[in-house]
């Protein structure tokens, strides 16, 4: 039995008087693609930010790779952080760097790679996200929305992470680009054996990517199971979110696109 890649135990999050999470428990084994869904304001992105340590929960414990997130020496914590990559909703590319330097940045920060090794690794990452070498010279301001997401994904993958966190990976992309991006994530997940945690509103994306769906409602994880079983759950949120005619069509479209 191996430890789950991500393990949340009794997470409580309070902002002032608002209770966002009240006892969230979730374990994500290696190799799974888990989608967090929930109504708006249910704290999906907050939970994602707590997993990567950008926010600290009021109570409860986050464990990554079998160890508490904030345990160990500073160097150990840095090493732990390098084992996951995060794709932010707006890309969060460094606007002062061009695409090449954006992807090279985390590699150079290791301080032990030669310029050639960095160059080759960046070129491979660019090829992985289906961009051309000449895109490496562009500045983030000169990229389209879809390309920003691709570059951000390449940067998230730069350190060969085992865990990938995606915050609304397809928000702001047209359906065509969105389907292409989902295919890309899926292919990379299979190729690199990644564990993926994502937050999305997009049912196409959800159906195409997730091996499991975690429903966040009533301030806790209602269930974490395969999509087929989640749809059968008897809960008003699930009813509204999954069982309308439009959502069924969207999910069918998502499954078709892969």
């Amino acid at each position, binding site marked *: 039995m191996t430890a789950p890649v991500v393990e949340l135990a009794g997470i409580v999050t309070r902002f002032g008087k608002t209770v966002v999470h009240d006892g969230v428990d979730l374990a994500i084994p290696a190799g799974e693609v888990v989608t967090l869904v929930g109504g708006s304001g249910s704290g999906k992105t907050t939970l994602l930010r707590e997993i990567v340590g950008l926010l600290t929960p009021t109570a409860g414990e986050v464990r990554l790779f079998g160890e508490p997130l904030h345990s160990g020496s500073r160097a150990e914590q840095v090493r732990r952080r390098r084992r996951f990559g995060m794709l932010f909703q707006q890309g969060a590319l460094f606007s*002062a760097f061009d695409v090449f330097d954006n992807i090279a940045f985390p590699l150079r920060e290791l301080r032990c790679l030669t310029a050639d090794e960095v160059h080759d690794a960046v070129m491979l990452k660019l090829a992985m996200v289906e961009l051309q070498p000449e895109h490496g010279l562009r*500045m983030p301001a000169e990229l389209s929305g879809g390309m920003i997401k691709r570059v951000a994904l390449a940067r998230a993958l730069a350190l060969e992470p085992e865990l990938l966190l995606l915050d609304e990976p397809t928000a702001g992309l047209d359906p065509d680009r969105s389907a292409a991006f989902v295919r890309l994530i899926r292919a990379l997940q299979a190729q690199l054996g990644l564990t993926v945690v994502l937050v999305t509103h997009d049912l196409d994306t959800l159906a195409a990517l997730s091996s499991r769906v975690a429903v966040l409602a009533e301030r806790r994880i209602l269930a974490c199971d395969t999509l087929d079983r989640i749809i059968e759950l008897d809960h008003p949120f699930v009813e509204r979110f999954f069982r309308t005619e439009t959502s069924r069509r969207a999910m069918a479209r998502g499954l078709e696109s892969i």
Partner: protein
Amino acid sequence: MVAPDSLSMPEVSVAQGVVVLRGDWTLRALSPQLARMRRVLEQSRSVASWDLGGVSRLDNFGAQLLWRHWRQTRPGQLRAAPELLRVIDAAEALGNAALPAPPRHWLAPVHALGDPLLALVSHIVELLRLVGQLGIDLAYLCVRPQLWPLREFSANLFKTGVRAMPVTALVGFLIGVVLSYLSALQLKAFGADIFIVNILGLGIIRELGPVLVSVLVAGRSGSAMTAQLGVMRVTEEIDALATMGISRHVRLVLPKVMALAVAMPLLVLWASGVAILGGMVSARLQLGIGFGFFLQTLPTVVPIANLYIAIAKGAVFGVVIALVACHFGLRVKPNTESLSANTTASVVSAITAVILMDAVFAIATRHIGVPL
């Protein structure tokens, strides 16, 4: 399935003409001992037979490391599990993809000389355009007085004027004390104690007050204005204003210029007053000149014209600082580098412009308010 936290060290050994690799060949496992691994691999360069059977994990970085070591050709004999071969295939498929060299033009030296010059010209043209646009807007506002951005003017007046009072007072007071102290040392030597009033009065009211306040306001409010307009450009707020049919010049630039045109003369008076107070305190301690005597003598040795010059300077410097700050703010491009570069340029240019204007004032008013 390997436990996610287990990590086996990469190893290289050569046995009977075959290079045997073991352990994890991943970035995480390799990076602590990359220099050593490079050296070890280097020793087995000529071997054509490789056994990767013992490799538990191979990521893209590890594959590329081997691929580079193999000089971009597959070794004669390679034994590896199919999933490892796939990773090596990916490294092979990349081929010699390289970042295209940034285009270098043979006219580059000419560009290096000409671009800053053209940039300077474009700055001047744009600044003139900004002033012209403000003039047109002012004329338009005179026809339609209900469009005056009075709330923004008031908010800016508070931010740039009232909020700047403590810092200008503090700096003014200390400069007054220092100036008075240093002058007193010299004047005492010549027995010319009484001239401390002339030095402080003329120096602070005519020159030091306006310039000092300008430097503080350029650093304090000028940079804030540039950064605010810059961020509004980055977040497309200025474009949003334009789509609502609201002129950015009327709503954003004009209130700032008006506010500084009003706030600066007042700040100059305030700071000069406090600086003279500081000077008086120091003069009394050093030279024993009483407050009453100081205040009585001041109007007789410093003609009132100097005060008018100071107020005029304050207003002009205020307009210059606001215009320069807005000009640079509107030039910010949507990236962090441009924001910081323009904010820096704004403060530096504003202070330089103020000192230039001060020189112009000095020449233009050389016959006014100086007792002969």
